[in-house]
């Protein structure tokens, strides 16, 4: 055991402090190595703090404005920028500073189910496709087939598609904010019109020439009283022979 150290400036009575100091130096070095290893992957308040705590090649996160950015030591530009991620009672919510980015179930708002890019705190649960081109649409399908499509662009166009017959489908288009609601059939064949059915039985049809066909036919009554007695409701059509009647009383 070293009991003293003689230097140019005098005697240092250091035993057992010398041994302790060496032990302390080794312990400090080990602790520093452990701290450096533990520093990687942690979340820091700023890039400067994370960069100071880590060593070359180590990665760390920086929390900023509710989001988390991934950095590598020595590079001030984040490697990955992540949106805020909240997980509460099994509900996953991903948000951005400028509004919700994606929400899957929201216990704080019953109106939200699956939502993307909602502005404001009282948004309606819906799915939005953020697109800058009218050529891009949002499609929904089952069994690998697209069944419904919401088109982009300024008009609101909802299309229903029949995967087994491309000539059958439908389209609802609303033009502008105060436009007329239009229900249209998009067909490539002149043999297909628009059929209105109940329980797979056609009740009314509009053929490709624009003619309205009452498939089941109109009931025949002489007047409104007889039609009422026969079960025709007010404001419904019936016939008197070949004359189309409209029950008003």
């Amino acid at each position, binding site marked *: 055991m070293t009991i003293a*150290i*003689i230097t140019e400036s005098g005697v*240092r009575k250091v035993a057992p402090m010398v041994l302790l100091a*060496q032990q302390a*130096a080794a312990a400090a070095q080990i602790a520093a190595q452990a701290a450096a290893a533990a520093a990687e992957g942690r979340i820091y308040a700023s890039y400067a703090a994370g960069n100071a705590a880590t060593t070359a090649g180590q990665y760390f996160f920086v929390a900023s404005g509710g989001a988390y950015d991934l950095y590598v030591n020595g590079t001030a530009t984040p490697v990955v920028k992540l949106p805020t991620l909240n997980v509460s009672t099994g509900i996953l919510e991903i948000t951005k500073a400028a509004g919700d980015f994606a929400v899957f179930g929201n216990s704080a708002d019953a109106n939200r189910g699956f939502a993307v890019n909602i502005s404001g705190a009282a948004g309606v649960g819906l799915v939005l496709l953020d697109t800058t081109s009218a050529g891009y649409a949002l499609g929904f399908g089952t069994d690998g087939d697209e069944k419904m499509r919401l088109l982009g662009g300024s008009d609101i166009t909802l299309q229903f598609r029949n995967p087994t017959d491309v000539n059958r489908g439908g389209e609802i288009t609303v033009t502008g904010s105060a436009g007329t609601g239009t229900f249209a059939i998009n067909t490539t064949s002149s043999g297909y019109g628009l059929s209105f059915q109940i329980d797979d039985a056609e009740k009314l049809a509009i053929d490709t020439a624009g003619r309205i066909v009452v498939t089941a036919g109109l009931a025949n009554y002489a007047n409104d009283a007889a039609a009422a007695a026969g079960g025709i409701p007010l404001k419904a059509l019936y016939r008197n022979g070949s004359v189309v009647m409209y029950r008003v009383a």
Partner: protein
Amino acid sequence: MTARIDIPAFKRVPFDDDVAIIGENLSAATFLMHVRANRGDTGTPLITLGNASPPSQGVSATYNPAYQWQEDGEILTAPASLVRIIIAEATLEALSLGTPYTEPVELFYDLHATTDTKRVQFEGKFPLKPGVTI
């Protein structure tokens, strides 16, 4: 100036400690150390130590070109010689206690080291403590 280092020893156990001397290489030096009741005594020393390799009784020195020690909270590194002094238990047991025997006997020593010149490396008191466990 010669360093002053008091070396306390216990009567009932061997003495084995070293002193680090910064800046010198004494690995090839010739050592001689006497322990006496008083400075200036010229009779037979109570203890005589010469060069001897551990674990034998005597004085030896090793040279470390990168010796580290702590000073004012800073770890310093410099060449140094570690001068190791070993005194056997039997040698210490043979020394007489003072009066009263409960108190350490105040003896004295100094260490000569001869390289190209002969010098007293360090000197001081050699308090011999009576100890408790025999």
